């Protein structure tokens, strides 16, 4: 695995900067920060915010797939449900945006706990199918429930005032709020991956019977990473609802679950930065090729096939192989 990022081994081979982070990771985070701070002045801010939301979603998914080794095919459930709850909280209950996002996130966490505790009892394809089945139940619930507005979704969600003070109606102001959430999410994921907990996860991913024989309660670890992943997917979904002032069935439909798998695999499963790149590529395609309609989906399919055939580690995975450093 090119993704073996044991910090002890890495400390020996790469120089370690502040906060216990390898220097090249620190450099990438710094570059990302500088680029994203300048981005709203160079690019269309709403588009960049969309990329950030999906990047966070893909990173949350990657935590489960890349580091926990669990392929969930129902992550749209947490993403979509959080966006509904956040939109409802902001619009009907009149909560401030940060409270609305927290409300959405909590619901995603509870949902993750409920679905995860059942799904982790099965492995491989059965796990994927169980998560898909639950996600479809959530989809049909969203289609029928009164508060989601059925196929019209929840429209005209107010962006509101951050902490009741800062007006978010300006896209630039909102952008920095989203950027802060994005960075907090990414750094949290980074911390989780490089914690002892993350090490155990990787051990379980590589050889589950061995982890059991070493005395780890494997199912507890799996459930914990499942809930964390669902929660962070919820953060992304809840934020997206505030950005677009809209929560709709698209976010909870199974194609969204598929899209996040695609983003993660294309960018590089099991890498820290891969899902960000994958999300950026897919969202850019969808955005700038929107006028070609169905051809976007076909293009995505072709890219996916090419990625699977010629660079299975994903874009960032291949780069990591070239520079011989984990990314």
């Amino acid at each position, binding site marked *: 695995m090119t993704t073996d990022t044991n910090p002890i081994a890495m400390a020996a081979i790469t120089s370690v900067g502040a906060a216990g982070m390898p220097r090249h990771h620190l450099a990438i985070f710094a570059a990302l920060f500088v680029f994203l701070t300048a981005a709203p002045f160079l690019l*269309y801010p*709403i*588009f960049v915010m*969309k990329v950030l939301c999906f990047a966070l979603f893909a990173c949350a998914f990657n935590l489960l797939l890349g580091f926990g080794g669990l392929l969930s095919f129902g992550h749209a459930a947490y993403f979509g449900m959080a966006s509904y709850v956040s939109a409802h909280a902001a619009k009907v209950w009149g909560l401030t945006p940060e409270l609305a996002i927290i409300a959405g996130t909590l619901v995603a966490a509870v949902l993750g706990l409920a679905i995860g505790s059942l799904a982790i009892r099965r492995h491989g394809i059965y796990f994927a199918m169980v998560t898909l089945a639950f996600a479809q139940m959530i989809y049909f619930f969203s*289609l*029928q429930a009164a508060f989601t*507005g*059925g*196929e*019209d*979704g929840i*429209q*005209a969600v107010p962006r509101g005032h951050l902490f009741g003070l800062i007006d978010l109606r300006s*896209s630039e102001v909102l952008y920095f709020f989203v950027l802060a959430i994005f960075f907090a999410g990414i750094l949290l994921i980074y911390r989780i991956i490089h914690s002892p907990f993350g090490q155990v996860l990787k051990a379980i991913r590589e050889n589950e019977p061995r982890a059991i024989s070493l005395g780890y309660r494997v199912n507890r670890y799996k459930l914990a990473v499942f809930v964390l992943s669902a929660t962070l997917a919820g953060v992304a979904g809840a934020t997206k609802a505030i950005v*677009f*002032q*809209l929560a*709709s*069935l*698209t*976010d909870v439909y199974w194609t969204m679950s598929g899209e996040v798998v695609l983003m993660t695999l294309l960018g590089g499963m099991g890498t820290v930065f891969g899902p960000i790149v994958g999300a950026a590529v897919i969202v850019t395609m*969808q*955005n700038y090729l*929107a*006028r*070609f*309609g*169905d051809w976007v989906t076909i293009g995505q399919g072709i890219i996916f096939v090419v990625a699977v055939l010629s660079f299975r580690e994903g874009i960032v995975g291949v780069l990591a192989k070239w520079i011989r450093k984990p990314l």
Partner: protein
Amino acid sequence: MKKMGFVLASTASLLMAGAAYATDVKIGVLNDRSGIYADIAGEGSVIAAQMAVEDFKATDKGINVSIVSADHQNKPDVGSNIARQWYDTENVDVIADVPTSSVALAVNEITKEKNKIFLASGPASSDLTGKACSPNTVHWTYDTWALANGTGSAMVAQGGDSWFFVTADYAFGHALERDTSAVVEASGGKVLGAVRHPFPGQDFSSFLLQAQGSGAKVVGLANAGGDTINAVKQASEFGITQGGQALAALLMFINDVHALGLEVAQGLVLTGAFYWDKDDQTREFSARFQERNAGQKPSMIEAGVYASVLHYLKAVEAVGDKDAAKVMAKMKEMPTEDPLFGKGTIRADGRKLHDMYLFRVKKPDQSKAPWDYFETVATIPADKAFRPLAEGGCSLVK
């Protein structure tokens, strides 16, 4: 000094030339170009908008119009993203069409926020002129209330006084069933029952058998798109219309009938705002349209795009400016007149008023030419066709 005078004079003349051609208008046609509504809107709506610009002779009147288009894939997030981008970075002044109510409601909000104009021809939701109404939106062609009212009241008047509904089990289907039931009962008919089918549905046999067994004179299909098409096909296999029951599709377009064929669709009853074969003017327009749109006659949505763009351009000409508030005020003040919908008005809540028609699909042997599909059963006058102003709950109505 002489030189200075020359510079001043030429600047002044430039400014005056500028004033004469001051109005650059950019129209964005946003609709489904690849999915289930691509036939009833899609490229045809873009063609309709272009024809409106040409027929208006906009360039001669000092209005430079450019048209852009995009595919919203029937997804509200994609649609709202495109709408925002058009308004923010591409200086689009007007968005036209937008079928699929969820996308239209999103565009409605963004248009209000950005203070632009939305000419809604494609969407069905009557909320656009009800609780979601906006000073920046004109809802042109039809809405769910008008469809329910048209089919419900006209069918009862024709003797179809007992109804059974086959309803898609989601909010849109429920709303359509509820509104139509209310109209049927208010007109003196009764509703014998209803059955909910899953959305999207493939197998309608058990639902249609229940409808057949109910003995109702009218079977109402409270669904849309692929569901309606499947239900109509299977209803023809069960011989529902041949058995003496009338089949009423609450949301259906001429292109759906074209796709189904008369053999299957015959006897179906539906409400619409426009039929190409209504009079000489509609026939003339439709012939020109058909030539440019791969042999397809215009749907009522495409007709609505043409008429709404035409009326918008008239208002821009009258105002001499494209300021959204002034143009909207003019559009509502000026009576509408166009070859497709005739004379009409736009109400304070943004609802465009015109006659609606109850059509029955012809039997194959009654149809004399391609696209000769409908006979007009009843005309619902403009003042009765749409929801009364006071009942919508629109905040613009005092």
